[in-house]
Each structure stands twice: as C-alpha cells, then as structure tokens.
C-alpha cells in the first residue's frame, strides 16, 4: 500500500516546482513607475540618510515628482548597481564613490551630464575633473572631502608645541607627544582603500605618482612612514587600523594627532571636553604644496535607455547639487561644497574647517591618471606599504608592487 502513489499528486507537484523556477528566473524585470524616481546611494548612517531624504523631498517638490532613496553600504554600491544593470532595473540617479565612477563609466553605464543639460559653471576645474572620465563629465559632486591633520589642542598646548607644517616638524612633534600609552600620531595603513587613501598625501606631496610606484619619491614617502613607526610615534597596530579605528584612538586620548577626514567630525564633537583643531597635512619641505586626495561621492545618471527619464534625473541632480543644497549638505556633513560660490558662503559659516577648504583646493583625484585601473594599483600599493611597515625595505616592496600593478593589465 505504501508505494501506491498516483500521478494525480505528482503532476501538480512538478508543475508547482516548475512554476516557482519560472518566477525566480523571470522575476527580475521591473516596470518603472512614471512619477517615482529612485536614487541609490550609500547613506546608510541614520543622519546621512535623513539629510538626503530631506534634500530629496525638497527637490521632489520643486520638480513635481516623488523621489525615493535606496541606501546600501558603500562597499556594495558598485556591485549592486551592476546587478541592477543586468536586470534592467537601474536607479534613476546613482551616487558612486568618485574612485569607482571610472569603472562604471568605462562599462558604458553612465550618460554624460552635459548631454542632459547640466552645466559646470562655478565648479572649480579640479572638481569637474573629479567627476570626469577621459574628459567627459559624468558625475556632479555636491561636496568633496579630503584628509587633514587633526590635533588635540590641549595636549599640544600643555607640551608647548606648535602645530607641525613640515615632515621634520611633524616627526619631532610626534616624538615629543609620544608618552606612556599615548602615541604622537595615528593614521591608517590598513590593507584596504582606507590605507591607500591615507598614503596618497605623503606620496603626492613628495612628488611621487601612482603610475610609477617604484620611484624614489614614493619610496621616500614610505620611508617617512617607516621612520615614524621606528620612532615609536605610530602604533604598530597602524597596519591593522581603519580610519574609524584611528578616530577611536584619537578620541580615547591614545593619539595626540591623527590623519583623518571631516566625516569624523560628527563623532568627534560627540565627545565633550575634546578640544581638537585641524590643519593641513605637513609637507616634505617648507614651501611645498600639500596635495591631499579628493574624496567623496558623485551623482550620476545611469544609462537606462529612457531618454525622458534621464532628463528628469539630470534635473534632480541639478537640484541636489545646487548651491543652496550644497551649503545645507556641507554644513550637516562637515564636508566642503563643490561649487565655488557655495564654498565661499560655507567658509564664513564653518571657519574652524578653513584648513580643510585649503586642502581641498590643491587636492587631487585618485583616478584622474589611471581611471578604471586604479583598483589594481591600489591593491598592489597597500600590500607594498604593509610589507614595508612590517620590515621589508621600501624599495623592494614598491618594486614588486609596480610589477604587480602593471602585470594584471
């Protein structure tokens, strides 16, 4: 009896499983709602998500459409967008990290903003380049950020030390401030983009370049890092720290100075009694330019094949990156407005961050020279400075990195 199954049950079972399979396979295509526009960004922090939602509400009202915000962690924006591209469900506006934009542009995923009627008037050339790939302007920045030297005012005052401006001064100051559990300086040399981002101001201010990692200038910058570590001014854990870890150490009083960015200011201000200041990153010799990395996101219009919607998307970007919205966003997030007029207004409202604005003026984009090849160079470089900081001679490590960076392409 137990074996008497009838096809009457079996057939529906098969049909059901086939149906489920069919739904899974075909469920990707999505119909767009004509009045609802979507923005994909990485504003997963509550405050950033809220600020963006407010901006989108204002812009939506102005343009007569509804704009929805989708946020995924920064490291997943790129892969998420690529998946959306293959299922033809790209968002109308895509906020990419500027270092990832070239890859997306190269893949044919972005529409040039000028074709959609967005102008670059009042935007400094450096920031236009920041949002451009091979001469085409794809990404509008609202604000930009860069790295600067943060210092504990009280600690420096107590030691009777001035804020360093050259490498020699910084080395000396850091040495003197290193005391007991406190290190003179904290920075991130972790094995990810954080570490590379932090290395660039040293590499660039010393005349080095990402296209030639084995040059004496890059080695000089790395040797400078090594000297700080040798002095004991940097913690050995530096190679294991992200920029957020560096900020934690600074806030806990375990570091007197740190290299970090304005996105930490909100957290820094949450600690009562922490009296911090900000300065440009010291340069190799007095009179040199302090060249920092330009960071931040750019707003792009992905190639969805729907010309009308793309035009409206450009209008949304125009509103989000408009002068007034830039100032609002910059003051909320402690970053520097991209637009020159907005930046001038912002300077008067946030005078304590003036050093940051100066640093932005000379800052460089990481991908300007290498475009989509940046990621392989970045991986090679992080491996190299980690090897050097854990004992290998800088030249050997960088020579290997240069070989590795060029062999993959």
């Amino acid at each position: 009896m137990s074996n008497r199954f009838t096809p009457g049950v079996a057939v529906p079972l098969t049909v059901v499983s086939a149906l489920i399979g069919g739904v899974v396979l075909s469920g990707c295509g999505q119909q767009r709602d004509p009045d609802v526009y979507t923005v994909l960004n990485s504003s997963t922090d509550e405050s950033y998500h809220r600020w963006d939602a407010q901006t989108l509400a204002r812009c939506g009202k102005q343009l007569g459409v509804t704009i929805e915000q989708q946020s995924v962690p920064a490291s997943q924006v790129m892969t998420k967008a690529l998946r959306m591209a293959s299922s033809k469900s790209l968002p109308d506006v895509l906020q990419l990290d500027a270092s990832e934009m070239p890859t997306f542009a190269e893949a044919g995923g972005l529409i040039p903003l000028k074709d959609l009627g967005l102008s670059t008037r009042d935007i400094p050339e450096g920031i236009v380049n920041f949002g451009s790939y091979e001469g085409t302007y794809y990404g509008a920045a609202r604000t930009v950020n860069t790295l600067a030297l943060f210092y504990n005012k009280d600690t420096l005052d107590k030691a009777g030390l001035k804020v360093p401006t050259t490498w020699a001064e910084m080395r000396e100051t850091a040495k003197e401030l290193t005391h007991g559990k406190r290190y003179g300086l904290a920075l991130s040399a972790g094995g990810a983009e954080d570490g590379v981002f932090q290395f660039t101001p040293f590499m660039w201010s010393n005349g080095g370049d990402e296209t030639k990692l084995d040059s004496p200038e890059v080695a000089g910058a790395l040797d400078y890092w090594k000297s700080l570590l040798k002095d004991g001014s940097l913690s050995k854990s530096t190679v294991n720290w992200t920029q957020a870890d560096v900020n934690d150490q600074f806030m806990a009083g375990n570091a007197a100075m740190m290299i970090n960015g304005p996105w930490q200011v909100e957290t820094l201000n949450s600690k009562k009694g922490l009296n911090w200041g900000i300065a440009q990153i010291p340069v190799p010799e007095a009179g040199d330019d302090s060249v920092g990395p330009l960071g931040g996101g750019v707003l792009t219009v992905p190639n969805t094949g729907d010309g009308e919607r793309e035009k409206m998307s450009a209008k949304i970007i125009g509103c989000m990156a408009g002068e007034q919205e830039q100032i609002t966003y910059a003051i909320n997030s402690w970053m520097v407005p991209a637009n020159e007029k907005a930046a001038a207004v912002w300077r008067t409202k946030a005078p304590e961050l003036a050093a940051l604005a100066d640093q932005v003026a000379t800052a460089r984009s990481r991908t300007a020279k290498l475009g989509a090849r940046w990621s392989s160079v970045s991986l090679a470089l992080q491996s190299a400075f980690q090897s050097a900081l854990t004992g290998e001679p800088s030249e050997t490590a960088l020579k290997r990195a240069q070989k590795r960076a060029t062999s993959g392409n």
Partner: protein
Amino acid sequence: MSTTTASAAAGAAPVAKKAAKPPNPARIRRRRRLAQWGFIAPAVVFMALFFGYPLVRNIVMSFQDYSPSTFFTGESPFNGTDNWSNVFNDELFGKALWHTILFTIGSLIGQFCIGLGLAVFFSRRFPLNGILRSLILLPWLVPMVVSGVVWRRILDQDTGVLNSFLGTIGAGGDTPWLTSTSMALISVILVNIWIGIPFNMVILYGGLQEVPKELYEAASLDGASAWRTFRSITLPMLRPVITVVLVLGFMSTVKILDLILALTDGGPADSTQTLGTLTYQNSFVQLDFGAGAVVGNILILISAVFAVFYLRANRNEGK
C-alpha cells in the same frame, strides 16, 4: 484524467477491485515509476536551479572575459584559459593556497582536539555540567563578523585586552597578534579554533552518548587504563561521528572569508590572504569576475574531493 480518478477510487477499496479485475502489471509499474519521479522532481528542479545553474555558470565564467561592461552589453567573450593562467601566474595565488592549507589544517586539528577533550570531559557527571556546557556554546551563537570585530579589538597590540592581561601576569604583553606578517595567520587560526570548538564538542558529545556503557564496564573489569579505554573503545566507536565532524569542519574552514575580512582584511602585507579572500578581492574589488570564478572553482574542486571521501567513508559504514 479518467484513469486518475479511477485509480483514486481504487485506492478507497483496493482489495475488492483488485480481486475483481487484475490490472496490467506493466501499467502499474509504469504508473508507480511516474509517481516516484513526480515526487523527486521538485527536489531535482530545486537542485538544478539553485545549485546546478550557479555551478555550471561559475565554470563557464572562468573561461570568459567577464567585466563590468558585461552587465550592460551581456557580452562576455570566451578567452580560453587566459583567466586560469593569469591566476596561476599571480604570486598571490600560491601564497593564498599555502595560507589556506595552513589555516584549514591548523583550525581542524585545534578545533577537533579541544572539542573532543571537552566532549569527553563533559560526558562525566558533575555539578554545573549542563550550565558550563551551554556556556561553551556561546562562540557558536555569535555571528562570525561580530566575533571578528571583537577579536580584532582584543588582539590589538597596544590597546587590546589580551596583551594588557599578558602584561599584568608578566608574560610579555607586546605580542604583535595581528600586526606582524609571521604572527597574523596564527592569530587568525586561533580565533577560528575558538569559533569552531562548540560545533566539534556538541557533535562529539552526541556521539559519546551513543557508546554503550557496558563496554566501559567491561573494560574496567578487565583492568584497562583510561588511555587504553579511550583508544580501544571511545575512538573506534566515535569513528563515524569523527568523519562527519572533520568533513563538515573542513568544508566550512577551507572557504573562510568573513572572519579574515573582519580581522585583518587579508593583511598585513597579504599574510592572511586565503583562496576565499582572493576570490572576493578578484570579483568584488577588482571586478575581474573571470579570475574570481577561477579561484572559486578551485575551492569547489577541493571541497568536492573531500565530499567524495566522505561519501565513500559513509558507504563503507553502511556495509
């Protein structure tokens, strides 16, 4: 459909109908076979869809030039064995393979020995046995990423709890757990052992409960030492469970990714890169999906070899 209803009705009073008119035996067999396939079909469809398709896709992808533009154009031209030779020529691959071997063997030995020790320990009766046993389960309940982040803090060379503890008991206190290229892999293995102990302990403890108590009584009557009892009774009786623990442990260890990303990001200086982190880096950092697929396939191949061992061992057990 008339046959269906007929047979359904037949089900209600099978004996009477059968006696009245014996149906064609060939037809019954055919129908029965169809019914069996009908029940297997959902499983087959499911396997094909969620296991077969990605697997085949991954193998095909490793012979394709699969780049970000593929997502837009849908074009991924075949490039022969380019991806494979690129991966094999990358010095990082050799390193990652070696680290994976060390990591897997180290973790398995550590987890298994400590897990077995604890299982044997807890199979005696003593006060607080149950509470202690459930406390040891804790590492298992914590998500891998959380363990990673917490351990990263604990192992911090300057501000970590472990070093300051070692310092106060006068045992150094300046160990570069995660910051030295020679130490980082060992630390990662130690953390993974910590995570894996509960799993080993629980399964082996379960196995120990199945060993007949009479055998131990007999052994003690014969005057066998504790070690002899363990070697001649406990271990052989546990053999099938040990196979399960080791094979499952192997599979979850060889593909390690999240723990290493949270602890060291593969660093310092690639000293903790494994095949898992390499495939992640290739696919999702460099967006070279072809190369990522190659490393992924190698991982699948290694796991498959062990799965075959496991199946064979189980088949022998059944005989």
